[in-house]
């Protein structure tokens, strides 16, 4: 019996050793891939950083209002964030490529899904970024126009516009990454529709005089020039 | 196409104006004469003219270049004899050249026997042949014409101790046309020359014949009555002869001299001439078209006389002050070029000796409605000498050749009646008939071709005129029409190439045939007819429907 145990043990050890010997080179390959991947990712990060610095990406991001958001979330600057993101994605990519070598079943499928997901994530982030840019621009434009036209509550108007655009953009981003698509769509639809309806009622009932004045000024030329004119000053 | 037979000769004439003194000296005394003129008739016939208008050649003290006449029935001795004149007349007629002479009706020289008799005593039979007065206050509303030299229209005669009336120089007393004897005698004078065979008279200073108190003594109905009477007699006794009025007036004021076709046959269109010069300088047809728009219709048997230059200064009386200043500043920069209210220069110097402009101006002269007159020497581009004083700068000897005295006279150069033009540009070695005859494209030969083309049609002399008003104001374009014949004339008044679109829809379907080269141009369609012209270029197109 002792000999059987030893023999089985030896066999098991041999199998383990065989398995280890089978796995070890692959692990070494994974490690090497990880190392190479780190180097490549690092180089990529440095390269990207210099490009972003060149195109003043931080300034762009500031204009977009993204920088303020990041600061509030105690995140690093947009350039740093992007570089780090790219670094991690690249390195992870390399690691995952290496992991494939291990030949673990099911893992390959997940890895493939991960890589397929990446472009959509990127697009979503791009939508978000551009959307923030647009929201800031639009809200500022509305603010300035309202101030110069002496409208009441210009900031409220500006913030409303900004919020609407951000919500819209977020919905699009979420839809792009496929997170709670249906929920987001419906939620956005309800929120947007309600807002519009509310605005219409408010504008229509409360602001009908303003609306009349606005339309008259825009569409009817040649009406009395004194209407709406506060004085006889001319800047030029 | 030959000229229609029922058209009066003067409507198709091309008149050559010359002074016998300036043309050719046959006897070596330095002064041109009739025998000389006779010898040069072939030249004129070859050139293509068919009428010659002679400046005054009657005996005269020559204090007003022959317009002060001392004898109406003879020839000044410097120019030959009456026989010489008759011979010349016959030679001209042999070559189918009509002869028009000057007839100064309004006044005579104070050396004329009539005046000598009139002034001798108040009882003399010729006393009333002139206008006498004991005071100088009559007819005070009449203007003084020679402002530079005369202070009054009355002159004191120490012989008869009274004043006599003169509208011009004081040595040119006015005849009294209220006296039937004067009227009869002047008709006799005219008859004398008509019987010799002259074809017409240029009647000088016609507006001033009769005076009436309380008027400006110009263009009076009584004056017209005198002229009409002359015309009536002329038509009765000498049909086919012509009367040409010299009256420097606006076209509308000139109209009465045509009456109903029973007064003058022709009259000079004075206001048009400076405007042609103006149009070329301004590069704008406006002055030309506007004066012609203001020109009234005249009876069908009557005709305007057109000219570019003549023996007098280029008159600027019939223009506005603005226009006069412009003309003086552009054509007479030196003050010595200006005389009275005009410019005393010849055609070629006025146009800066620019051959293209000379051609253009002659082209317009030959194609506008009227009978053209060429001043002697302008056909070869003669120059002038403003240093000769008065208007003598444009009356220098004709330049026949580059040789002795320009071939004008065999006399010593110092004996010539006036010095020759001698500068390198216009002097007789450079500008003369002989050289130009030998050069195919000389101005002389070109003028000959121009006249030849003009004579292929009666349209220019007798046809109607309709101006086209293309938007490009540098183009003067008009359509001349007579019966079935239509001619389009397009002139570029500018010194740069021009493009012009002409509205010829009325003549749609016609083919244009350029009259000099006889080449065919595109047919007129519905769209504006596009033409391009070089600097100062002009086209004459015959419109044909085939």
């Amino acid at each position: 019996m002792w000999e059987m145990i030893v023999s089985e043990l030896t066999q098991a050890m041999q199998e383990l050793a065989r398995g280890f010997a089978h796995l070890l080179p692959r692990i070494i390959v994974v490690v090497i891939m990880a190392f190479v991947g780190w180097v490549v990712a690092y180089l990529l990060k440095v390269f990207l950083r210099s490009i972003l610095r060149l195109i003043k990406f931080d300034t762009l991001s500031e204009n977009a209002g993204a920088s303020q958001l990041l600061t509030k979330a105690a995140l690093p600057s947009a350039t740093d964030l992007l570089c780090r993101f790219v670094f991690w994605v690249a390195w992870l990519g390399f690691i995952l490529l290496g992991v494939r070598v291990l030949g673990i079943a099911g893992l390959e499928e997940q890895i493939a899904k991960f890589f397929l997901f990446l472009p959509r994530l990127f697009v979503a982030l791009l939508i978000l970024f551009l959307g923030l840019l647009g929201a800031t621009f639009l809200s500022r434009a509305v603010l300035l126009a309202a101030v110069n036209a002496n409208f009441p509550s210009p900031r409220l108007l500006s913030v409303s516009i900004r919020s609407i655009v951000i919500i819209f953009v977020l919905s699009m981003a979420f839809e792009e990454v496929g997170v709670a698509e249906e929920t987001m769509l419906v939620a956005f639809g309800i929120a947007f529709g309600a807002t519009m309806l509310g605005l219409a009622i408010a504008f229509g009932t409360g602001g009908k005089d303003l609306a009349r004045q606005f339309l008259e000024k825009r569409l009817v030329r040649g009406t009395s020039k004194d209407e709406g004119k506060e004085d006889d000053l001319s800047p030029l | 196409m030959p000229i229609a037979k029922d058209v009066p000769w003067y409507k198709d004439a091309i008149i050559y104006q010359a002074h016998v003194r300036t043309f050719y000296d046959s006897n070596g005394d330095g002064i041109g004469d009739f025998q000389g003129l006779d010898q040069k008739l072939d030249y004129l016939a070859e050139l293509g003219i068919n009428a010659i208008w002679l400046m005054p050649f009657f005996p005269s003290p020559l204090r007003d270049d022959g317009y002060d006449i001392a004898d109406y029935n003879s020839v000044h001795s410097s120019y030959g004899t009456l026989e010489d004149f008759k011979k010349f007349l016959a030679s001209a007629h042999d070559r189918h050249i009509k002869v028009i002479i000057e007839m100064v009706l309004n006044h005579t020289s104070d050396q004329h026997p009539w005046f000598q008799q009139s002034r001798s005593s108040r009882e003399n039979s010729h006393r009333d042949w002139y206008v006498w007065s004991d005071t100088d206050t009559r007819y005070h509303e009449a203007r003084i014409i020679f402002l530079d030299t005369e202070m009054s229209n009355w002159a004191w005669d120490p012989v008869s101790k009274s004043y006599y009336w003169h509208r011009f120089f004081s040595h040119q007393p006015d005849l009294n046309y209220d006296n039937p004897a004067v009227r009869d005698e002047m008709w006799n004078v005219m008859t004398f020359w008509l019987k010799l065979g002259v074809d017409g008279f240029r009647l000088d200073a016609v507006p001033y014949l009769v005076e009436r108190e309380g008027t400006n003594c110009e263009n009076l109905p009584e004056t017209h009555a005198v002229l009409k009477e002359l015309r009536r007699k002329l038509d009765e006794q000498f049909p086919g002869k012509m009367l040409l009025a010299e009256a420097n007036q606006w076209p509308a004021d000139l109209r009465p001299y045509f009456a109903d076709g029973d007064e003058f046959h022709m009259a000079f269109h004075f206001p048009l001439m400076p405007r042609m010069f103006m149009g070329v300088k301004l590069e704008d047809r406006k002055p030309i078209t506007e004066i012609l728009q203001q020109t009234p219709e005249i009876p069908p048997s009557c005709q305007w006389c057109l000219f570019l230059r003549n023996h007098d200064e280029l008159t600027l009386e019939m223009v506005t002050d603005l226009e006069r200043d412009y003309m003086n500043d552009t054509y007479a920069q030196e003050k010595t070029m200006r005389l009275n209210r005009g410019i005393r220069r010849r055609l070629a110097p006025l146009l800066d000796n620019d051959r293209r402009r000379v051609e253009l101006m002659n082209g317009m002269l030959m194609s506008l409605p009227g009978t053209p007159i060429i001043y002697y020497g302008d056909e070869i581009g003669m120059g002038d000498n403003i240093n000769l004083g008065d208007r003598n700068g444009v009356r220098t000897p004709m330049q026949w050749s580059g040789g002795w005295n320009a071939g004008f006279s065999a006399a010593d150069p110092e004996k010539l009646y006036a010095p020759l033009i001698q500068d390198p540009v216009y002097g007789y070695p450079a500008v003369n008939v002989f050289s130009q005859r030998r050069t195919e494209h000389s101005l002389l030969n070109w003028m000959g071709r121009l006249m030849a083309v003009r004579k292929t049609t009666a349209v220019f002399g007798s046809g109607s005129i309709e101006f086209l008003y293309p938007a490009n104001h540098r183009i003067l374009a008009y359509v001349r029409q007579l019966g079935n014949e239509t001619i389009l004339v397009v002139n570029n008044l500018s010194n740069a190439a021009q493009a012009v679109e002409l509205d010829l829809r009325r003549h749609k379907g016609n083919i244009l045939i350029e009259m000099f080269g006889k080449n065919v141009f595109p047919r007129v369609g519905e769209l504006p007819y596009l033409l391009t012209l070089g600097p100062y270029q002009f086209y004459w197109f015959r419109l044909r429907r085939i």
Partner: protein
Amino acid sequence: MTEASLAEESFLTDDLLRQLINVGEVDILVGVPTHNDAKTIGPIVETIQAGILGFFPRARAAIINVDGGSRDGTRELIVGAGIDDAKSTSKVRTLRTLHSISTQYATTPARGTALRTILAAAELLRAKACAVVSPESTQITTEWLTSLLRPAYIEDFDLVLPTYRRHRFDGILLSNLLYPMTRALYGLRIREPYALDFAFSGRLGSQFLAENVWHDEAAQAGSETQFTLTAIAGGYRICQSFLGSKDQIERRSVDLVPAMRQTVGALFASLEPKVSLWSTTNGSLPISTTGPEQEFTLEPLRVNRKRLRDMFLTGVTELESVFQSILSPSTLAELQRIARLEETGFCYSAELWVKTVYEFAAAYHKSVISRDHIIQAMAPLFRGRAFTFLTENRTASAANVEDDIEALCLEFERMKPYLREIWNGRE
């Protein structure tokens, strides 16, 4: 070179080209941009013609109307006023044809395109001198033509700008910003750097036509100001000519923001390409002027000063986040301080105003936010400055107003090093 670029872009219609061919070379061209001006344009064109015929009777001249889509017969009125031999009903006796042509450059008015069309016509017609007359200048007299054209046509100036008799409170944007800043930056005391009635030589017109402003819509809008700056930068001979009263009858309410876009926007945009010029210019010199440099009238004028201050306060409050991107912290703080002052104590000092303007100019150069937004943001601050100007000069004489403006100009000049500093300075 210019002919080639014209051919490439071909914004000139065939119809206009045909009309230009018919006009041919001219000595003088007068351009009149219009849009539905049938009520006023007749007498203006008649006056222009009388001016040309009276003062330049021998000159080859033409009037060109560039129209932005009128539907009230404006174009027909102008074309019908031409003087030529085809119109035998013309009462005016002239030496030459005086063409009056018209073209529609667009279906809606666009100042820049209008000016560009006039410049192209002037070049093709080889005009020696060209004047532009606004259809709003109903106070025009025949003397305007000689005042504008004589310097360009006879005295060899390249740009002739107008000076006017104005109400002392008229044109505050000009007197408090455009004039002093142009003067400080470019060293020339040009009272009306933005003008609607002006004249120029053919040389300058060709130069400006060839410049690359026509591809940019924003730059096109400020083309009049650009024109003046091109003349200054190119060392062209500039002068001023007194015209008379600036039109007061048709006081169209010129909206401030569009006006600022055309003027202040153009001025700021010019700073970058011309930095080597303005950064080395010190002080300022007067330019040749015919007649008084400026005349002020003192009649009462309806002015709503309170509204100006209110809009300033609203601006300072609501636009704080925008101003933070544009102004320095000290300037912004100072503005907020004066915003808290009572009306009687309110004063937007010259120094503060100059600092504000210069900081805006630097921000514009760096495009810290959209450039159009920078201009819009400046409007409420200008209103505050206008309020102070109106208050300080409420009972002032014409001389005092002039002194006040002169003091402001000197302040602009004195603080120019500050602009240089912040221009190259902080990131």
